[in-house]
């Protein structure tokens, strides 16, 4: 049916252009995702021919996976549940041969057929069009009265070969399992790159979350297939005119939980102002490592907790930025402003001995206007240091108590005119 005819039948019909390369990409992504269920994944070709548009196939060898996933029913249920969460439309068929399974899927027969005998009897009455053969062959067969697959299989093979070529008999033999059907299995690429192009521009980052959800889930499937975790991955938002926006998502420990990834992505996306509307999305990752095994003691939940902690810190970092969260470290320096520094939370600290110091330090000493000398409770402590760098200090530190009872850490600047400064609180 062409477009004009379609519009005549249904005026609301919307035309979408078909994009074969991106279909093939999607199939490859699905193959990477399916690798978690089976060690042998075989990727079918997407045909550009209109008639074969619905014939893109992905085969999974499940015989060896049954035990791992707890039986046939469990495996199929898991695969279907995950597939639905990726929101692809699909049909499923289970058969003893590759072409047989594909045929069953196409015909919509949802019965697991495990031997060729049963397969033969099950497909006998199916129309010849269901077979993945060239259209003209099917047409010729139908006009010569061979309408079902059963009739075709009963014909002598050499006659078929003579009339339609040896590839048709080869196909039929492979379908029924009389000869082997070796095909190259899909291998996982060493790096991950997924692309998602939109037909229209997406304005809101809210709307971006839907495709992102799908991409992240596929990515998690890839990681599970590889049995690795990712510590960082890159999201690229492509725009029509301005250069693409890149967002690096980092985790403190390698992980492959799509929900955790999504939480981080959502947090980052809320904080990021995209310069223009988005027309494409890419997810890139090339560094993988083994994730921590999730085993924990019955009594001490330390491992579980440390993972939870890492996740919490990741989320805070994603929202507040790298400078928003840090640890503290003492530095061996007499000058108060140089005797501390921010540190990464995980690093080891040296223990240093300091004299008594206030809990709060002012980032900038505040000049004090003193009308009367306050009550000095302790001091002076002279700190004279730093002549070797630009920040030379000569100060006398005192602890003073104000009339309302608060203890302040003040100093008298000896290098200047003896002004007084407030430098901390004994909170």
């Amino acid at each position, binding site marked *: 049916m062409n477009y004009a005819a379609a519009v005549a039948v249904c005026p609301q019909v919307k035309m979408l252009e078909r994009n074969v390369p991106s279909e093939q990409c999607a199939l490859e992504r699905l193959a990477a995702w399916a690798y978690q269920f089976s060690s042998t994944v075989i990727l079918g070709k997407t045909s550009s021919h209109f008639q074969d548009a619905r014939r893109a196939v992905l085969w999974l060898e499940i015989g060896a996976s049954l035990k791992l996933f707890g039986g046939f029913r469990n495996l199929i249920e898991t695969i279907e549940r995950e597939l639905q969460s990726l929101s692809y439309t699909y049909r499923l068929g289970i058969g003893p041969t590759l072409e047989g399974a594909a045929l069953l899927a196409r015909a919509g027969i949802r019965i697991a057929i495990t031997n060729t005998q049963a397969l033969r009897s099950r497909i006998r009455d199916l129309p010849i069009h269901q077979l993945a053969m060239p259209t003209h062959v099917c047409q010729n067969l139908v006009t010569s009265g061979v309408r079902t697959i059963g009739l075709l299989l009963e014909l002598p093979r050499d006659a078929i070969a003579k009339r339609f070529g040896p590839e048709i008999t080869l196909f039929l033999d492979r379908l029924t399992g009389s000869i082997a059907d070796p095909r190259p299995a899909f291998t996982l690429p060493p790096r991950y790159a997924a692309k998602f192009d939109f037909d229209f521009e997406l304005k809101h980052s809210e709307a971006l979350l839907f495709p992102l959800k799908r991409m992240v889930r596929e990515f998690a499937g890839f990681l599970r297939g590889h049995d690795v975790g990712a510590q960082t991955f890159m999201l690229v938002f492509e725009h029509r005119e301005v250069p693409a926006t890149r967002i690096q998502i980092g985790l403190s420990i390698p992980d492959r939980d799509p929900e955790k990834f999504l939480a981080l992505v959502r947090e980052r996306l809320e904080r990021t102002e995209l310069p223009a509307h988005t027309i494409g999305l890419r997810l890139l990752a090339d560094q993988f490592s083994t994730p921590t095994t999730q085993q924990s003691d*019955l*009594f001490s*939940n*330390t491992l579980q*907790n*440390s993972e*939870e*902690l890492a996740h*919490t*810190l990741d*989320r*805070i970092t994603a*929202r*507040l930025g790298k*400078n*928003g*969260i*840090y*640890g*503290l*470290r*003492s*530095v061996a320096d007499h000058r*108060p402003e140089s*005797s*501390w*520094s*921010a*540190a990464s*939370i995980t*690093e*080891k*600290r040296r*223990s*240093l001995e*300091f004299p*008594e*110091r*206030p*809990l*709060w*330090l*002012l*980032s900038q000493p505040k000049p004090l206007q003193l009308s009367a000398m306050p009550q000095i409770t302790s001091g002076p402590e002279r700190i004279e240091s730093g002549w070797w760098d630009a920040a030379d200090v000569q100060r006398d530190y005192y602890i003073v108590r*104000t009339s*309302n*009872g*608060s*203890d*302040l850490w003040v100093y008298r600047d000896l290098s200047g005119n003896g002004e007084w400064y407030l430098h*901390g*609180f*004994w*909170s």
Partner: protein
Amino acid sequence: MNRAETLEQLARLCRTGIAAAPAIESSGVMELDCALPHGGWPVGTIVELMPLTTGIGEFRLLMPLLARLTRTENYIALISTPYIPFAPALARHGIQLERLVVIDAKTQEDTLWAFEQTLRCKSFGAVVAWPTTVRDREVRRLQLAAEAGRSIGFLYRPPAAALESSPAAIRLKLQTNQNGLEIDILKCRGARGGFSVTIDSTRLNEEAPSLPSAVQDVRMARSSDHPPSASHFFLCCGSASPYPSCLLKLCKRARSRLPPS
């Protein structure tokens, strides 16, 4: 951990589904522990602190608890601190800096968000935050987060907040008098509030000694439901204690509560 303890823990796990249930963390300050209804900060709650000014020992008050938490594999977080938390001083108070997380949130919204996230996380034993303003609804939300994460959330608020009501479990107003830091207990869950204790604030400077067993006896007796017997108290006071005056005061208070015999 010895075998008996493990078995005990297993039994508790089977009974309640909770591995360990120390619902109280001692504040490490004797006078305060005695004043609070169960002998310390209740775990899984929000504590509001309303100091009159900065520099009266309002943060030092938490140091014994925070130091102990960091020594027992817990993390602590300081969120939106008013000034720089000075690492040498924190270390002097016994805090393991490896277990301290400082969070700088630019906005009020982020502060409360980070507060909630850290409270919910089971690795954090206590979280201290200095938001500019907090509403009732938000405190209630934080309270739920603290319950979920079994941590203690300390919330510093301006002194004006003392006039408002709040769903926090404990509300303390802090000011100074000539004897030291005066803590007005405006509200505490499990007892009637409205009394005050005074702490010699110079004592807060050093690392607090661990509570001797005698003092713990008193705490247990106080927290039990039935009124403590007088003989029980004699026994406690008989043993050596570094806080004689405090114990005496406590005995007086306990005796005044006993039914006349």
